């Protein structure tokens, strides 16, 4: 049988609780960066400037075809060589935000492309500016089909935060490792980390679906 110690589990729970806050902050911060930057990357690919479109496209491809952990190391260890010294937290946010921005830009692109061509023509026929066309007509319709993908990546970014432990960000995984090596016991901390991830991921996925339905209704699309 497992040698599970309840008193040890309860003893380390507060420490893991604090680390959970860090994990949520890292995921939230990274996601906030990804949401905004992803939109910039998606829109940049729709400008008539061929060179910009090409560079952004290749950048997105590059990010998507290299491992996140490499990007994290890269930002943390290589950036200082160019005179940019970043804390683990900042590097971690940048790396994970950039990584997911590339994925979200594809989600946005899909959403925008799902809006029928006739909508653009209608905007044009009303002489609407490009900005109004996006803000008033295209994005509100591109959002609902993009929400499912955006939700998946929110859960994804949350599950990827343990990778930030490699550069010493004090999130859940980092805390579990530290507890383990201090007490020579890994069963309880790792199990608890797993349960914490499960307890957050599962309801989030359900909440996202509820939110999606709500947005559709709000926009009068269903």
């Amino acid at each position, binding site marked *: 049988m497992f040698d599970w110690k309840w008193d040890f589990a309860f003893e380390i729970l507060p420490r893991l609780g604090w680390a959970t806050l860090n994990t949520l902050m890292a995921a939230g911060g990274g996601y906030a960066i990804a949401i905004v930057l992803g939109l910039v990357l998606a829109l940049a690919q729709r400008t008539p400037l061929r060179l910009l479109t090409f560079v952004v496209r290749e950048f997105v491809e590059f990010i998507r075809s290299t491992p996140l952990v490499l990007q994290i190391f890269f930002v943390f260890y290589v950036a200082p060589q160019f005179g940019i010294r970043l804390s683990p937290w900042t590097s971690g946010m940048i790396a994970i935000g950039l990584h997911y921005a590339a994925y979200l830009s594809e989600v946005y692109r899909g959403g925008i492309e799902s809006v029928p061509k006739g909508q653009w*023509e*209608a905007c044009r026929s*009303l*002489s609407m*500016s490009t900005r109004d066309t996006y803000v008033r007509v295209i994005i509100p*319709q591109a959002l609902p089909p993009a929400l499912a993908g955006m939700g998946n990546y929110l859960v994804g970014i949350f599950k990827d935060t343990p990778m930030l432990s490699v550069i010493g960000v004090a999130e859940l995984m980092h805390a579990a490792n530290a507890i383990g090596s201090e007490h020579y016991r890994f069963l309880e901390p790792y199990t608890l980390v797993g349960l914490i991830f499960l307890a957050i991921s599962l309801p989030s996925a359900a909440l996202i679906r509820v939110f999606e339905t709500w947005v559709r209704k709000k*926009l009068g699309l269903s």
Partner: protein
Amino acid sequence: MEDLSQFPLELDGADRPMVSFRKVTKRYGSLTVLDNLDLDVAEGEMVSIIGPSGSGKTTVLRMLMLERIQGGVIYVDGQPLTHEVRDGALVPASERYLRRAREPIGMCFQHFNLFPHMTALQNCMEGPVQVLGLSRQEARARSEELLDMVGLIDKKDQHPSRLSGGQQQRVAIARALAMRPKVMLLDEVTSALDPEVIGEVTEVIRKLVREHRLTIMMVTHQMGFAADISDRVCFFYGGRIEEQGPPSELFGNPQKDRTRQFLSAVKSAD
């Protein structure tokens, strides 16, 4: 580079056309869709455009609305649309100029293209508020008046998904009219409709012609309606006007073989 000096900087005189295509050429890659087209539409005139599929009917309307041309100049209300005057010469219009110059042109489409996330009223108010800068009260008053005109004031708070095709198209007409256009472009506005609701849309178009004296260019496959309502019918073939004239002549006594072939093919299809 084409020589633009052959085209006037603007059209003046009391009898100037509302819309004027001068030697207009439109190509998609190597495909020439409009070939040196000359077409004038007078103020208050109702011109129907008929012709086989792919003959360039939609393209004529789109040139007034959505796209750039490869040759010639288009004038609207005397002013160049596709070009602007800089240093006393015509140069291709900037995006900014195009948007302004197109403001007096409204368009309705085969598939309505209403904004699905807005109610009928919001659809109508969008242009006046965002583009013309009207206050919400003014835009609302104007839009409600137009929705009333097309017989849909009781549906003003419905989203398009709750309206029938005929109702959606009438909202689309009201939306275009809310911009107070001088020219209306109608591209097969009844083609996507069930036969029993076509009448409610053609009734609205009749109103525009009779009561509002709007300048209208209408692409249609409904020959009977075109004959009934138009001042002039243009038969398009291969990106040119093969034949044009008052409906009584074009339908009653067509001169060209291609026109006769087309009309008899359409008649036998009905």
